[in-house]
């Protein structure tokens, strides 16, 4: 297997992009990534695109060909293009597919991208489409919503570990603060604990400000084998590990409802592959689709003991200047969560951090970063470890 590096990154603004279509979003992210890599369309050997639900959101399938076509890579170049789907982990999986393609030696220059256009349908349709990441037959038909499932995780976490409602709110407050320094973020504004606590209930105990928003956006990275990367780019960021794990699709069948075992296993495999431990991670983008999800993530990734996610957040451990800064981009919560694009955006953020290009939200001295992307309530988890050094 060959070592792989990220040599280019691109990301659209995240938000309600009323004037921009699915195709517009993808094109912008892909073009920016290629320009950043100093590569041309002719260099591209393959495309992998993460997308959760274009079939429901824009009534369009066959996304791989559509994207290759509108990127100008299909009509004359006939570049192979593959859509990858694992609900909200689609982007992380697309990155992994791209890494595997380059590592195997099959392809040299590969674009791994993610895109979601979520605001072309009514909100009720969006809620229903997101609920399809859970088990439609045995969760959805019973009235389960996505926030509802995470709310049940939160309720049990609070019951079992004493995690407080305020600690959940602190996740949102921190991530909104980080997003004020990210011009691509959907919400570039501060919020207070009171704002969270007074926002309307969505699924008790989760409130509006505990939930990631509905977002349009796209992100892309360009991958290359290390030798080629050095020729094309001055600051390649190395992919030290790409790991993935599955778990039961239903929340109720899990070994433990408050633990995402898919995260635990993906993380263990990633640390082993990179030959590091959680302590070596300088900065992480984790899957905070809900505030409780970030608390579970920092536990399941091994940054804190199980049950200590709430107090660790309260003590500032996950803040930009904390021991392990979490979600400097603002996370899914404040940067936005265009579901298929999120996993790639996380990698984009970590690359910026490791390059030292993250501006006001720069984590000083970051050398090793982690991106953690979850599908559903934890049926799929993907963990990538990126590093300045090989």
């Amino acid at each position, binding site marked *: 297997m060959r070592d792989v590096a990220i040599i280019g990154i691109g990301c659209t603004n995240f938000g309600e992009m009323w004037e921009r279509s699915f195709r517009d979003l993808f094109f912008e992210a892909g073009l920016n990534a290629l320009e950043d890599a100093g590569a041309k369309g002719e260099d591209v050997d393959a495309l992998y695109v993460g997308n959760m639900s274009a079939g429901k959101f824009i009534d369009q399938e066959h996304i791989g060909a559509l994207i290759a076509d509108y990127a100008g890579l299909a009509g004359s170049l006939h570049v192979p293009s593959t859509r990858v789907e694992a609900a909200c982990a689609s982007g992380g999986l697309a990155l992994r597919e791209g890494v595997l393609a380059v590592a195997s030696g099959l392809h040299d220059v590969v674009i791994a991208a993610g895109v979601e256009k979520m605001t072309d349908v009514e909100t*009720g349709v969006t809620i229903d489409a997101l609920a399809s990441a859970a088990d439609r*037959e045995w969760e959805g038909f019973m009235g389960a919503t996505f926030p509802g499932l995470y709310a049940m995780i939160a309720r049990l976490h609070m019951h079992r570990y004493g995690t407080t409602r305020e600690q959940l709110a602190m996740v949102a407050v921190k991530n909104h603060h980080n997003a004020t320094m990210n011009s691509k973020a959907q919400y570039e504004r501060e919020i207070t604990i009171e704002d969270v606590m007074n926002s309307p209930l969505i*699924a008790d105990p989760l409130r509006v400000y505990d939930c990631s928003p509905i977002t349009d956006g796209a992100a892309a990275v360009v991958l290359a084998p290390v030798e080629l990367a050095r020729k094309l780019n001055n600051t390649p960021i190395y992919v030290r590990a790409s790991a993935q794990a599955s778990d039961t699709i239903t929340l109720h069948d899990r070994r433990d409802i408050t633990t995402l075992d898919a995260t635990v296993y993906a993380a263990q495999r990633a640390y082993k592959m990179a030959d590091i431990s959680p302590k070596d991670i300088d900065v992480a983008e984790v899957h905070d689709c809900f505030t409780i999800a970030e608390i579970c993530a920092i536990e399941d990734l091994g940054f804190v003991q199980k049950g200590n996610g709430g107090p660790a957040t309260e003590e500032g451990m996950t803040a930009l200047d904390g021991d392990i800064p979490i979600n400097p981009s603002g996370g899914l919560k404040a940067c936005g969560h265009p579901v298929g694009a999120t996993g790639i955006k996380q990698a984009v953020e970590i690359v910026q951090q490791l390059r030292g290009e993250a501006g006001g939200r720069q984590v000083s001295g970051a050398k090793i970063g982690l991106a953690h992307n979850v599908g559903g309530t934890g049926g799929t988890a993907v963990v990538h470890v990126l590093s300045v050094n090989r």
Partner: protein
Amino acid sequence: MAVPRLWRHIPTRYNLIGTECQTCGGLYFPPRTTCPTCRRDGRIIERKFKGTGEVVTYTTIYSASAAFHRQTPYVLAIVKLDEGPLLTGQIVCDPDEAKIGMKVRPVFRKLGEDGPSGIIYYGTKFAPLTEASQ
């Protein structure tokens, strides 16, 4: 939605018919064609669950998909059946009645309908187990 998708699960949804693996004794609801533990060594038979159990965790849904929009707020829970398996279902009670550890019993309710002119689908929800209902 075409009718067969709802029709095929009628026995399971009405009466909590799951499966049992005779090799390892594992109990599963919903039914599984393969035992996740024994895989091809598993011997799967039908198993009806009583439907009594305990609330493991719960939430009250205030923002629902279009199909459940008119029923909010409603209580959704993960219930551990007395026989062991866990499942997700609604609890027919007021939001402030729900508690972790609450004992529940099965009730037969409408789960939803395919619009005002489409098929109605029925199945099992849960209600607090009171002395009278025992």
